[in-house]
């Protein structure tokens, strides 16, 4: 059935479709619709549990507990709440807990511009918690993709046994589009491998631990083994999610790299430029980015932040890129054209 659906709504439905049974969250603009939908869903489906947490620290930890108890769990938040969840995300990586954190980004830092869209949590999604870890981060750019990539995020979480970050923004979260959920090609939902709490004698801990869960807080070898095992697993899982979109343009010498809502806004420029859009933001699509960028003299990275992904792209391509930041929530074609004109020094049609 075709119907009008909002991005936030599609993410919630995608979570239910993936088999989510637990939501904990704290109201925050522009993600609150997901929390309200979860509350309503729990009201009608007693098996689905909903907690309105006292703060995002609590919500971030509650989804870890729920996951260990056997439920597929998730939360939804925005920048300030995402910051409060970072410690729990690091814990989830160390203790190897599958769960999903949706971040509907708004203009930051601080309280910023709560209703305005931005893409300023790219680095935070990858490096926000302390320590070295290997998170999966996905960023769709349409309502239909919000549905699909929520399912993908849940699957990647189960396969990698780690917290996955699903990015959105105030624009995409509140975007209404006509979709037919039945026509969206979806992967099969991945089932939980690990037995729930109450079945064994295991210890789940945020300390560095051996395979039996025994804390090993002064043993470098155990720590090294953990990094090798976890990063190998994440690499293996990432090979199943080579998700990107590339629109070559042989008449152009310039490739624009953008993602999420910005890539959607840039579509009319595809006749003048080649366009590359990563959907799997992390782990980086290193080979794909290199291959697609090869034929273009100029690389532009356009994003609603001050060059967070551009810095990463430069390290991947080992050459300078043009940075076009879109600030203040004004993500539109006019701002994009003006930014390109400034970066490339020529008129953009």
């Amino acid at each position: 059935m075709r119907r009008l659906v909002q991005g936030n709504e599609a993410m919630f439905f995608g979570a239910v479709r993936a088999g989510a049974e637990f939501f904990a969250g704290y109201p925050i603009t522009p993600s609150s619709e997901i929390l309200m939908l979860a509350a309503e869903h729990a009201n009608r489906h007693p098996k689905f549990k909903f907690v309105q947490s006292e703060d995002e620290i609590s919500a971030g930890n509650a989804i870890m507990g729920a996951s260990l108890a056997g439920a597929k769990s998730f939360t939804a938040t925005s920048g300030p709440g995402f910051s409060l969840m970072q410690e729990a995300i690091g814990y989830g990586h160390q203790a190897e807990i599958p769960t999903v954190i949706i971040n509907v980004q708004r203009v930051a830092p601080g309280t910023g511009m709560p209703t305005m869209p931005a893409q300023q949590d790219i680095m935070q999604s990858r490096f926000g918690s302390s320590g070295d870890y290997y998170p999966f981060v996905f960023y769709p750019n349409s309502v239909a993709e919000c549905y699909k990539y929520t399912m993908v995020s849940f699957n990647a979480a189960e396969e990698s046994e780690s917290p996955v970050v699903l990015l959105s923004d105030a624009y995409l979260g509140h975007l209404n589009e006509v979709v037919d959920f039945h026509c969206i090609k979806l992967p099969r939902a991945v089932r939980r491998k690990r037995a729930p709490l109450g079945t064994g004698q295991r210890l789940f801990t945020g300390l560095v631990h051996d395979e039996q869960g025994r804390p090993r807080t002064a043993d470098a070898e155990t720590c090294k083994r953990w990094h090798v095992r976890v990063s190998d697993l994440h690499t293996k899982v990432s090979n199943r999610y080579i998700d990107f979109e590339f629109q070559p343009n042989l008449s152009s010498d310039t490739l624009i790299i953008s993602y999420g809502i910005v890539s959607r806004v840039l579509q009319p420029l595809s006749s003048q430029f080649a366009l590359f859009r990563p959907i799997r933001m992390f782990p980086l699509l290193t080979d794909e980015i290199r291959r697609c960028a090869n034929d273009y003299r100029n690389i532009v990275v356009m994003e609603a932040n001050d060059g967070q992904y551009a810095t990463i792209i430069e390290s991947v391509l080992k050459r300078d890129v043009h940075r076009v930041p879109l600030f203040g929530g004004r993500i539109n074609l006019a701002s994009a054209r003006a930014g390109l004109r400034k970066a490339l020094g020529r008129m953009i049609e």
Partner: protein
Amino acid sequence: MFKDLLKLERFPTTWCPGCGLGMIMTQLAKVMDELHLDHTNTTIISGIGCTGRIAGYFKLDGVHTLHGRTLPVAEAIKFVRPELNVIVASGDGDLASIGGNHLIHVARRNTNITVLCNDNDVYGLTGGQAGPTTPVGTITSSTPGGCKYEPIDLQNLIKVGTQYHYAKTTVYHQAHLRKCIRESMLWQGFSFVNITGQCIENNGKRLGFKSAYEMLVHYRNTYKKAPDGAETLGDNEIGIIRRE
């Protein structure tokens, strides 16, 4: 046998000789044995600090959470698996300071979990700094001039809801400690056991106690049982207060 519930192969524990935590762990294991709680029906959630290591010594699935985050984790587990008995074991710093906001709200929501709070007046593991329960005037490694502030009133914090179950006891009063744990486990709703226990190495010696034994004697001489039916416990009273 209660010892069957413990991972004795991991002994000796990480705790200092004379620490009160072993006595709390023993009484918890005894109550679990009496109530037929084991790895099929029970989970223990602990936080950070010396008390945080308790979960790892029981032969059941346990979760060693982040500092202060036992309660959100425990509550979520109880929501997902209401048939599991969920026990939280943590220290006063973990529960009442860094996790204080969660404590108020989980008590308010009256989630059916039991919290054992090892209240030793200080942050023991990090070297004996003042905590939320440190008595005013106490010299600690972070209050060289004596602690300036009144300790937090855990009893009245737990009484935030219309229903509550609060027990106060000490590690000296072993039979009473066991009774408090047992009645809290059987209570349908949120229950909190505040257990005064000795940290001889990072608190007691600074206060002039020569041994853990002296601290226990001090608890014996200081704490008296509250009269039956008391609605509020006095400063030096042990007992259980509840409202259904």
